[in-house]
Structures are given as structure tokens and as C-alpha cells.
């Protein structure tokens, strides 16, 4: 059976492809190199109009270590994909209009900054992000949870994406929020397996981003998939498990 891990080299290749497409689509991704090394990360900033939901969200601390085994297994990939890849994604300025319409509370414009890094421990991409008001005040973990759409919140609690925690950005040393990667391989496996079986090209980073991004307001336009150029885009690795 093939392994569904991502090697650092392929991560870079996937990122390059994503950047090429991003340039064509003009949706603002860039590559930020880390001084004095080969490493770096994908970066994008976006303004989001977010409905502020005053209801308390969840016990942020108690469950945050539980990216654990005992949580029930749902099938988030298919459902999340279907619900969250928005057909009106080309309309960038209006991307959150659906969210606003769904809520009665007030809304607020927030500045979001998204980083995609490679985790060499889990050998997966990891999404880091931070959010601030236009006046520059950083959002707390509770506020970030509050800005996740209620429909997502409910689903998150029973899915492998269930963990948003505050963590140190491993390249910048600053506090960021992070979607925990420890179950990424698990939910990516069926997608990659299917693509491989059908000899369909797949960009690991792009596919992964389309699943985890919408949770925190980061939409991946459908054109990424419709414009995917088959010849250049197989970014999956054969198994590399080394000794053992």
C-alpha cells in the first residue's frame, strides 16, 4: 500500500504549482523564504467580514489536546468539500456574503493572515493563521472560534479537524493559531488513494487546503481544480518509510 505522507521536496513542488496558478488567478498567495535556509512558507492575507457570534463556543482548553483516537470517525472530506468549495469564489470582494446573511448578530471586518508550512514531524502541510481587527488588535482564541461559522463549529467537534490551538510559529517564533496536523494523513489518505487509482493528478497541498481552509475563512477558488494542468501536477510521493 502506498503511503500518503508528503516529503519536504514535494511540498515545495506543490507550493510552486499552487503559486503559479495563484498568479494567474490573482488570489494573492506568495512564498516567504526563511533567511539562510531552503525553507519557507506560503503566505496570504485577506480581509474578512465576520459575523460576531456572542454565544460561548466550547471548552477551548480541555479538548485541545484531543486530536485523539477516541473521537468518532466522521467522513469530513467529502462533506466538507461539497459544502465549502463555493461556486462564486471568483467574486473575491464578496466572498463572505453568505456568512453574513446567515447570522443575525453584528459583523466586523478582520484582517486574516494565513501561512502554510511543512511539518517535518507529521510530514504534512500545516495551516497557521492569525487575525486582527483593522485597528491592529489581535484576536483571542475564543474570538477566532467565534468567527468560525456555526455550521462548521458543530461539525468540527466530531471531525479530524477539531483542533485549533495557539502555537508558536516555528519559523517566526510568534504566536499563531494552528489547525493541528496530527490527523491530516488520515483524512488525506482516501483522497490521494482515489486519485492514484484513477491516475488523476493531484496537488496534495491544494487538495488539503481546500479541506482545511474554509474552516477558518480561507476559500480555495474552484478554478484551481478546473485549470489544473495534468502534466505538471502529480505531487504525491511513493512510500518512503526508510528502515522500519
Amino acid at each position, binding site marked *: 500500500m502506498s503511503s500518503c505522507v508528503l516529503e519536504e521536496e514535494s511540498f515545495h513542488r506543490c507550493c510552486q504549482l499552487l503559486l503559479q496558478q495563484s498568479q494567474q488567478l490573482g488570489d494573492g498567495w506568495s512564498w516567504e523564504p526563511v533567511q539562510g535556509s531552503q525553507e519557507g512558507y506560503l503566505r496570504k492575507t485577506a480581509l474578512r467580514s465576520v459575523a460576531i457570534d456572542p454565544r460561548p463556543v466550547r471548552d477551548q482548553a480541555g479538548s485541545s489536546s484531543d486530536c485523539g483516537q477516541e473521537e468518532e470517525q466522521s467522513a469530513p472530506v467529502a462533506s466538507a468539500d461539497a459544502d465549502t468549495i463555493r461556486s462564486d469564489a471568483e467574486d473575491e470582494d464578496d466572498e463572505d456574503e453568505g456568512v453574513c446573511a446567515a447570522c443575525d448578530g453584528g459583523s466586523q471586518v478582520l484582517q486574516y493572515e494565513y501561512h502554510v508550512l511543512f511539518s517535518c514531524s507529521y510530514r504534512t502541510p500545516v495551516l497557521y493563521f492569525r487575525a486582527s481587527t483593522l485597528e491592529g488588535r489581535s484576536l483571542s482564541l475564543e474570538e477566532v472560534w467565534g468567527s468560525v461559522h456555526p455550521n462548521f463549529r458543530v461539525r468540527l467537534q466530531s471531525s479530524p479537524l477539531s483542533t485549533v490551538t*495557539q502555537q508558536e510559529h*516555528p519559523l517566526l517564533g510568534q504566536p499563531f493559531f494552528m489547525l493541528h496536523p496530527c490527523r491530516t494523513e488520515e483524512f488525506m489518505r482516501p483522497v490521494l488513494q482515489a486519485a492514484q487509482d484513477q491516475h488523476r493528478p493531484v496537488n496534495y497541498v491544494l487538495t488539503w487546503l481546500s479541506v482545511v481552509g474554509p474552516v477558518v475563512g480561507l476559500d480555495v477558488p474552484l478554478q484551481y481544480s478546473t485549470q489544473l494542468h495534468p502534466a505538471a501536477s502529480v505531487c504525491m510521493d511513493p512510500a518512503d518509510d526508510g528502515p522500519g
Partner: protein
Amino acid sequence: MADDKDVLRDVWFGRIPTCFTLNQDEVTEREAEPYYLLLPRVSYLTLVTDKVKKHFLKVMKAEDVEEMWFEYEGTPLKWHYPIGVLFDLHASNTVLPWSITVHFKSFPDSDLLHCPSNSVIEAHFMSSIKEADALKHKSQVVNDMQKKDHKQLWMGLQNDKFDQFWAMNRKLMEYPTEEGGFRYIPFRIYQTMSDRPFIQKQFRPVSPEGNVHTLGSLLKEMYPAAIPSDGEQKRYQVMIHGIEPLLETPLQWLSEHLSHPDNFLHICIIPTPTD
């Protein structure tokens, strides 16, 4: 192996005498006396400073108190690093006791993670253990453990119970004899000379040719400047738990014996004192 067991104890019971002083800009009703404490090297600042907090709150009004944080000579101290790492990185080669300033306002959001409760420390600690096991055993050992086993690791650390912790932690230290070590060594190399907080990559305990990797071979790959070339004066100290292990020490042995309870080998590189 009896000697090696002693190493585990020595690491666990390492203490740093510390003097906590209230930041002079805090509003107090009367003068705050400093507070002295022996800090366990392997624990976390926010986990062992309840007494410090209580001590200073006695002289403060409730409305002047926000989230507590610590600073050493202008540097906010990251509670999510083990205490010993903070000391080695920022304060080794200085006089004891370690003098830490306590703050109750102006939390430095852009430098420090918030720590509203011990469950946040627990989450951070368990997440490090899981990450380390992903490197060592592809997560197999930690995933085979039960919730109560995870709890035992945490409670062992929280309550400073060496035997309770190690009864479980030894499972995380096992490996197939024929492989000569873990899959990868969970390590982090810290330095204060650049913005990047630490270096963490994949590194095996044994080379493809079957040679045992040492602390020196790790540094040669990750931080060559830390190894003095022939005839050159030593520019850096390579510290783990306040000592400078020989560069010839096998990495696998270091990982088993000098790792912190979070299962990472934390290595500090600091400029050699000039005097």
C-alpha cells in the same frame, strides 16, 4: 545500566534557584517583597508559579491584575519552553539566583502564547509528546496508549512524580534492538542569535552506513558553527540541562536519557562567555 537510571533522576530533579520580583510599574497597595523558589528544570513556568502569583496578589488590587507573565532582562519568557531551556538559553553563565520579573499587565501578545489554565499546558505537553512519538515510532506507541496512560504522563509531570511518569514514559523510549534506535530523534536546537526560534528537522540515530550518529554529527548537519574547527577558539557552548555533553555522545543515548518529559531533546547554543 544502573548508572543510566541515575541520569534520569538527576535530570528530573534538576532545580534552578530563582528570585521573582514584581515589575516596578505595577500598581501595589504596599511594597512587594521578592519571592524565592526552586524551579524544576523539566517543568513549565506557568505550572509551578501558583505560589508566586498568590504572593504578589496579596499586595495588589484585583482590578490591576491581568494575565501573569514573566520577563528576564527585557526578554519575555516563553512558558511553553521547559524552564531549564529558558534558563540555559537566556541566563546561563550569570549569577544565581535567577532573577525573573513578574508582570500582571501589558501582556506581550506578539511574543507569548496565552496560558489561561493548566489545561492549556497539558494540551501543549501532550501535543509535544505526540509529535515526538510521530518521529520516533510513527505515532504507534502514543496511539496505542489509553487516555489514562496519557493522563499518567501529565500527572507525573504536574505533581513531580518521577516513578509515576517513568512507569509510562519508558514505553515511549523503546525501540526494536535491530534498528539501533528510534526512527528519528526528536530534537530542537535553540539559539538567540536570529529570529528563528529553533531548528527542528528529521535526523536518524544511525547513518545509512550503520554508523552511530553523535551530538557532533547532528550539529555538523544542523548548526556547523557550533563545532570549533581545529585550533579555533570555542565560540559556542552546546548545552543540555545546563551541562555541555561531549560531542562524541551517541544521539540515541542522549534522546533516551537527556530528553525533557515532552520527549524532545532540547539543545541550547549560546555564545561562549568572553571574560
